[in-house]
């Protein structure tokens, strides 16, 4: 049997506060993406006045999480163990492109590329100070999902954001604003989105954003991805 090379994977990474979750959610509107890792327990939003902040959805992998508890030392695991962990949250793994997201992927980019030569790697970047401030704005240590215990305190959070960002900048020489269509094309995904009706059923956040900004789904999604520097390999 041919070795699994990750041709149905998008491996996503970004430091806390990089606004990666919103971007990933927007990317998941392509008809090609499998979002069967969604679960009513795997959600976090914050409303700041009338402004909804945070858009955490679906599985995250890493220490203190349901999945990928040892992903801070990915190099101590085997590829088979990692793939098995990838699959666990999906109720149906056998269709579409799966987006696997973990802050700890940033520390292991060469290894991930070696294991999954046919996967797309996507990284989200914002400057260190921005990430730290934004993460706090979205709730900081009060964020209930995903989980940040591994970062321990503000001092370590600042340090790890710096490290994760440095790893991303080293591995992704081009980090730029991209439209949703550009991202979908670079990821090899269909640019056809699920219908507006399906979007509203799928995630209640989008109708909220649409109303607040008085914009279409397409405009809201585009603005969401464009504001964060993105690199794709």
């Amino acid at each position: 049997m041919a070795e699994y090379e990750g041709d149905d994977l998008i491996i996503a990474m970004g430091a806390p506060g990089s606004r990666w979750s919103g971007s990933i959610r927007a990317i998941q509107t392509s008809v090609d993406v499998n979002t069967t890792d969604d679960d009513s327990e795997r959600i976090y939003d914050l409303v700041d006045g009338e402004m909804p902040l945070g858009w955490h959805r679906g599985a995250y992998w890493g220490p203190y999480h349901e999945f990928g508890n040892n992903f801070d030392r990915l190099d101590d695991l085997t590829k088979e163990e990692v793939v098995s962990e990838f699959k666990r949250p999906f109720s149906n793994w056998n269709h579409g492109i799966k987006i696997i997201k973990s802050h700890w992927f940033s520390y292991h980019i060469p290894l991930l590329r070696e294991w999954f030569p046919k996967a797309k790697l996507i990284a989200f970047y914002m400057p260190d100070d921005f990430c730290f401030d934004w993460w706090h704005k979205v709730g900081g240590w009060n964020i209930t999902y995903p989980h940040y215990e591994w970062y321990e305190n503000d001092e370590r959070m600042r340090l790890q954001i710096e490290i994760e960002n440095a790893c991303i900048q080293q591995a992704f020489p081009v980090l730029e604003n991209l439209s949703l269509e550009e991202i979908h094309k670079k990821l090899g995904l269909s640019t056809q989105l699920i219908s507006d009706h399906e979007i509203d059923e799928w995630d209640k956040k989008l109708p909220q954003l649409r109303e607040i900004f008085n914009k279409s789904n397409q405009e809201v999604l585009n603005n969401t991805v464009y504001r964060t520097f993105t690199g794709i390999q």
Partner: protein
Amino acid sequence: MQEYRVEYSRNPGNVWESLKTLPPVSKENYNSLYEFSKATSRYHFNETVSDLESLDSDCPAVIPVKHFDANWNQAVSELITQAKPADFGFRKTTRLSGNNVLEENDFRRWGYDIDGGYTIANRILNPNLQEPLQYILDCFGFEKPGIVKFDVQMPGQCFYWHLDAFGGVLKNERGDFEKSSTSDLDQREVMRTIIFLDDQRLGQVWQQGNLSLRWSRGDCITWPWRDIPHGTCNYGHTPRPVLNITGKLTDKTWDFLYGGI
């Protein structure tokens, strides 16, 4: 270098919306304002490349906005008499020390005589504008307070080849480049625009990237401020007046750019 006559076949709103931004870099690694700014520019910095094609790209060397026309001659004549030489000492009062140190390093390295009277233009900061010049400012609908300058480049003055860093405009948000402003993360949030208040005369030069502009009285331009190097000089015989407006965009600005006004 190619000559480019300012014209309005492209919608400035669409062009401005298409702009991209490179992530900020730390100033710690730089002792030159030009090199620091260049690190976040998407321009090619190659003298042999034609920039006419750039006008249809997401990194255009210049973006014509609109042609204004009204009788502002008397107002401009009066402003010209009030404008004062903008030397390095004058210009650094609006910025913070780190920015000034980097720029001074550049001047000294390049041989500009900043101790002996090098001036970029004669300038009035936040001039008291009368109609119809106030109308032009109002069209843009920038978030207040914007920065308005009346600049008149007198014969013999030149504005050195540079990239905009907006060290004065954005200092409240970023300090002395200690933090990123939101405009550093998305350059579309802030715009500098120039309105030429007189026809181009012989000996007056405005270069955007590899384009030498040909302008007429009333032409209004902007450019991706983080990307496009530019410089100007007046080796002619007559003053070259412009209105120089910088501000954060609002919905009104976008409406104006898209042609709603």
